[in-house]
């Protein structure tokens, strides 16, 4: 079945990303903001691994993240929409906390908002080291009524997330997509920081969804990440390559992906020393 984005999300992407790129005075002679599509994707966006807060030639950080969204976000939204659609055929009962690590322009937040029914209610924490990316994420989230009931906060890294010190049992959904390609990523450190954040939320169940391109380099840190997560008490419920059916102007085609799902039930045993 072809994965279709909800209409509101497709409209949002058209208005906030596609039209802004195409209407820009620099987008002439088949270029996007003055560069060819290939240059935009491979050099300006760097396959998603660029330092977006630095200018690239004449392009500002805002231009670069807009091009990132233009080149890559649709496919990411489709992958996550497919994954969340399988995970949540029914919306969860409790208001979840969604932690989107390497959130880009609110990609995971928008995808899950499209799956959890009309005006879904959840807490969204978007973590991305790029300020320009977070800014675009908030602009996109604020531009749709679908996100009206979603309380949002944005952080540069996991340690900067602020949280009221009330412990609870709310379910947590962590999205770790497209993050583990970074050659500098320390998986043990990432999981350690994540555990610290989860401990501030309380003892609720935690779901970790991972998706990425199936190319080897994109998943270079996955096995270390998976091992550390399982050591921390997470069960691995899916770890595979697969594909989703998508539609482009050229017609219907398959999009391959690597995906994994981890889950740790709510922790009802209080670990005491001694």
């Amino acid at each position, binding site marked *: 079945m072809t994965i279709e984005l909800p209409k509101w999300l497709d409209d949002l992407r058209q208005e906030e990303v596609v039209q802004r790129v195409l209407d820009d005075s620099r987008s002439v002679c088949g270029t996007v903001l003055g560069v060819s599509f290939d240059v935009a994707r491979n050099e300006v966006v760097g396959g998603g691994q660029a330092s977006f807060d630095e200018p690239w030639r004449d392009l500002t950080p805002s231009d670069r993240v807009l091009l990132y969204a233009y080149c890559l976000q649709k496919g990411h939204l489709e992958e996550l929409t*497919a*994954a969340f659609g*399988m995970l949540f055929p*029914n919306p969860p009962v409790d208001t979840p906390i969604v932690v989107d690590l390497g959130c880009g322009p609110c990609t995971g937040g928008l995808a899950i908002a499209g799956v959890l029914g009309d005006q879904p209610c959840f807490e969204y924490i978007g973590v991305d080291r790029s300020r320009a990316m977070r800014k675009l994420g908030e602009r996109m989230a604020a531009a749709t009524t679908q996100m009206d009931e979603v309380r949002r906060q944005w952080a540069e890294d996991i340690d900067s997330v602020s949280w009221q010190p009330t412990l609870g049992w709310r379910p947590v959904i962590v999205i770790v997509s497209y993050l583990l390609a970074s050659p500098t990523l320390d998986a043990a450190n990432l999981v350690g920081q994540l555990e610290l954040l989860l401990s501030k939320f*309380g003892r609720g169940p935690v779901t970790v969804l991972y998706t990425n391109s199936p190319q080897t380099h994109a998943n270079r840190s996955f096995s270390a990440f998976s091992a550390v997560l399982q050591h921390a008490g997470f069960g691995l419920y*899916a770890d595979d390559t697969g594909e989703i059916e998508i539609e482009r102007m050229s017609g219907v085609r398959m999009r391959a992906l690597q995906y994994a*799902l981890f889950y740790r039930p709510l922790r009802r045993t*209080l670990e005491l020393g001694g």
Partner: protein
Amino acid sequence: MRLPTYEELANVEEQLEVLEYPLDESLFVVGPPGSGKTVLAVQRAETVSRWETGKSVPIVTYNRLLRRLMQLLNNGGVYPRTMHTFVWEEYRRRTKHPVPTEREDSYAYLWPEMLGRLRRARVVPDRPHLVVDEGQDLPEGFFVYASRHVSRTLTVFADEDQALSRQCTTLEQIKRAANLDNPIILRRNHRNTPEIAAVAEHFHSGRLPAADVTRESNGELPRLIRSRNIDDTAVLISNWRQTMGGAVGIVVHRTQPTGVELHQKLRELLPRSRVNIYQHDERNENSTNILEDGVTVLNKMSVKGQEFDSLFILELERFVPCENQAERRAMYMMCSRARDNLLLVYGPGHLSKKAANALPGPQILERQ
């Protein structure tokens, strides 16, 4: 791509529920107010009793009124005792000696001396099971005593976030002294409305997460009320009782003189209702049927473990501002006794600025 649904994942977490836990294994359970610890304690003791073909299973707790509640909840096979009475009887039965105590305080048991005598006399556990409720309020020595000389199998319920004294026994101390595994957490509050739970949670500190409240809102915010004098307070409570019915609890700082005076006035105002006062030193708990509708006047120590449809906490200025963690825990414990309505009463003077600041805001606690 193939992923399980979230419901399928959640079903993986087959948690061992207290009542399904093997009856011949020790069990340690911690849980917030309203999570049903006392009811579960009684049910576990009853189940063990049936399994042990009718042998009576002791259930030990902190205060006499809670012991009374357990007696009322008991459907047979359960033997509720306060810790002091239980140890007094049990120690004498096994050693033929009275419990050694401090010279000035017959409640202060000398645990090292008792444990030494029991060890020398080679007294081994002879009861199949012992259930303990409100374990955080019992001394550490009791748990050593219970596990070495009463029963090899203990079920202990505790919540250190509600401990009243500063010298409460920590969960670590209970675990070590009674040789228990890590505790299971009960996570649902079945007692309070969400509005009452929010007021109680305002005073909550500790390491247990805020409980998930299972009840629906009844649309009633807890109220803060100023009363000019005890006559006004008595009229307020009697009107409330006549209008709302149900079980009404009234917590006073001390039963003498406020509680006694209020009790008299309420008896006159409510001649057809049950109106009781529980006084620790009068040992009158057996004449109080706290499960029946009516009015019960009691103090902070005795309200522990109880629940009422409506709860009035009088003399609020004596309980707030909470100057230390023990006082915060006391407010947390007291507020969470209310099922449907919570009323905090002060007066005749104004609350101090510090006391007023210690209370939740008007969106949680309505000012009247």
